[in-house]
């Protein structure tokens, strides 16, 4: 099946400027630095990583909310990075976003009806007020909101309900592709499951394709078909959710998975944990070679490749399941699914 969305060598660099009149560029934050992946129609690709790894920037650069520094983003065959704002407009309808903070992403001075209806008006998808009202109410019902509340304001709703408003707004234009940027991170535990189930249901009903960005590995594993792991602006591993959890190959993925606490004391007591040393280095000045080499436990155990790790940037190798690591490259990558228990 051909990809709905195809990202190649995406780079998003932000200049750091100094000076009042002549703003000299003194450094660059390489938030995203050479990211490639495909998303197939109807699929959910999970994008995980820790804060500052560039996962949200990737999502925004795909939607052209930031214009990428380099690389291409093909959506249904068209390279979005080459299009002017005007030429992009018809595509925006098909690519929407759900934000993390349901408090900050809804205009407090607009009613729920206006918030959800605005994209319909902007994209001229309704011909009259009656049709607009009907569609807004349908969207509210679809997202589990009481349509009688159409004239209320965002502050009258709880966090979970606000997230439903944000989802209804994203769905208004009947998009094909939605970037979900940490959609459950700000919600209470008992509400997170409601929102995840809603997203899954909507995907099934409407044939949506998701890029699901989150730092919560358990949630990502639950909702995604495939998962890409990011570290300091690069993708270090891609695999289907099952393989990634059962048999992670990149040392960073292994550490990340072992760090996620599991709500079961008996399981917790028996797990061995890879505790990484140190912090994520600054993307202003990422380490040479493999960006993970400063914290990598595998590099210490494999002195023969250690030099390569500090010198050469590892490329993603493999088909379907991909890993970017010199140690894995030396040992060879088992085919996807081989490590299944």
């Amino acid at each position, binding site marked *: 099946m051909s990809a709905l969305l195809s990202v190649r060598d995406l780079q998003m660099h932000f200049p750091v400027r100094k000076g009042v009149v002549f703003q000299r560029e003194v450094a660059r934050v390489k938030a995203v630095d050479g990211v490639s992946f495909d998303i197939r129609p109807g699929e959910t690709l999970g994008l995980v990583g*820790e*804060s500052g790894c560039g996962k949200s920037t990737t999502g925004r650069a795909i939607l052209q909310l930031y214009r990428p520094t380099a690389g291409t983003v093909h959506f249904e065959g068209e390279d979005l990075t080459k299009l002017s704002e005007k030429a992009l407009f018809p595509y925006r309808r098909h690519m929407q976003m759900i934000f993390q903070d349901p408090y900050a992403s809804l205009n407090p001075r607009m009613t729920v009806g206006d918030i959800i209806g605005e994209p319909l008006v902007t994209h001229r998808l309704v011909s009259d007020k009656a049709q607009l009202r009907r569609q807004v109410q349908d969207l509210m019902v679809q997202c589990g909101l009481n349509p009688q509340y159409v004239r209320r304001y965002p502050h009258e709703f*709880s966090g*979970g*309900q606000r997230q439903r408003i944000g989802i209804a707004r994203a769905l208004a234009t009947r998009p094909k592709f939605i970037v979900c940027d940490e959609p459950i991170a700000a919600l*209470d*535990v*008992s*509400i*997170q*499951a*409601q929102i*995840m*189930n809603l997203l899954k249901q909507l995907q099934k009903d409407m044939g949506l394709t998701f890029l699901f960005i989150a*730092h919560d*590995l*358990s*949630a990502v*594993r*639950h*909702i995604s078909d495939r998962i890409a792991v990011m570290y300091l602006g690069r993708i270090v591993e891609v695999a289907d*959710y099952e393989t990634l*959890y059962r048999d992670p190959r990149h040392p960073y993925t292994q*550490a*990340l*998975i*072992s*760090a*996620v*606490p*599991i*709500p*079961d*004391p*008996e*399981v*917790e*007591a028996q797990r061995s*944990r890879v*505790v*990484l040393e*140190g*912090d*994520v280095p600054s993307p202003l000045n990422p380490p040479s070679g493999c960006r993970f080499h400063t914290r990598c436990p595998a590099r210490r155990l494999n002195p023969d490749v250690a030099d390569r790790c500090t010198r050469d940037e590892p490329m993603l190798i493999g088909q379907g399941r991909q890993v970017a690591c010199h140690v894995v490259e030396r040992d060879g990558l088992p085919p996807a699914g081989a490590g299944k228990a």
Partner: protein
Amino acid sequence: MAENLLEVHDLQVHFRTDGGVVRAVDGVSFHLERGATLGIVGESGSGKSVTCNAIMGLIPTPPGRIAGGRVLFGGRDLVQASAREMRRLRGNEISMIFQDPMSSLNPYLKVSRQLTEVLELHQRLDRKAARKRGIEMLEHVGIPDPARRFDQYPHQFSGGMRQRVMIAMALLCKPRLLIADEPTTALDVTIQAQILELIKQLKEDEGTSVILITHDLGVVAGMADEIMVMYAGRVAESAPAADLFRRPAHPYTRGLLDSVPRLDADHDELKPIRGLPPIVTKLPPGCPFAPRCDFASDACRRDYPAAKTIGGEHFTHCHHPLQEVSA
């Protein structure tokens, strides 16, 4: 039975608001054995943080007040203690670490000043000795190059390192009780693992008792001996950790366990708890969870359920517990 370091009896904390009096904590009782870890689990507004602020004597009065109950720490009732007595306890015998280390550290003061202040105040150490002890403590919590870092400002530390500084500060006087209020919620998972490992290690070394407040069932699963689940200012269920996860008796606990995705489980459908979190100014009579509960009966909507013992130290406030009640 081991000796209890802390006993909380029928604690009531009320806040006066425009919408009426909020019973943020309503009849909470628990105890903590010396050297043990208690996990308090609940969502926002469940009263878990207010409970611990009350123990620390940190309820802003007004609008808040401790309306009833006793907090026995080493035999003394902290509710009756004078402000002066509380100042002597805080930071010395009871310490607290918070979710957001940036807002709990003074950005204008070097880390050195913030660390030595506690020692000079409580332990009457001179400058030099306090400095030495401060640097030792930074090293102890795993901060590299502690002598240099000691004279830096909080903004020069990363999130995980700031939380380490907070922990160092909290442990300087070797407190008997450490209260950790969502200590890892603002941190990335790999850093969270480091901090939890550190708290565990320090607990073993110093024999400190710990109260760990969190919304993350995974975090308490690996850390706590006993777990108390709170909902709308009340205790829903309390049990030894293994019991709570294996045999949850309160439908809310069951609901929480069913609604979080597990990294080691398959793509099953999550069973969310229906409805919305309670609004603390408008709590229903009877059991506060009744409007969201699949088992709610007329009795639930009318009367708040008394504690029922499931066995041993495991009890729940529920009219229709999911486990058999022992006599």
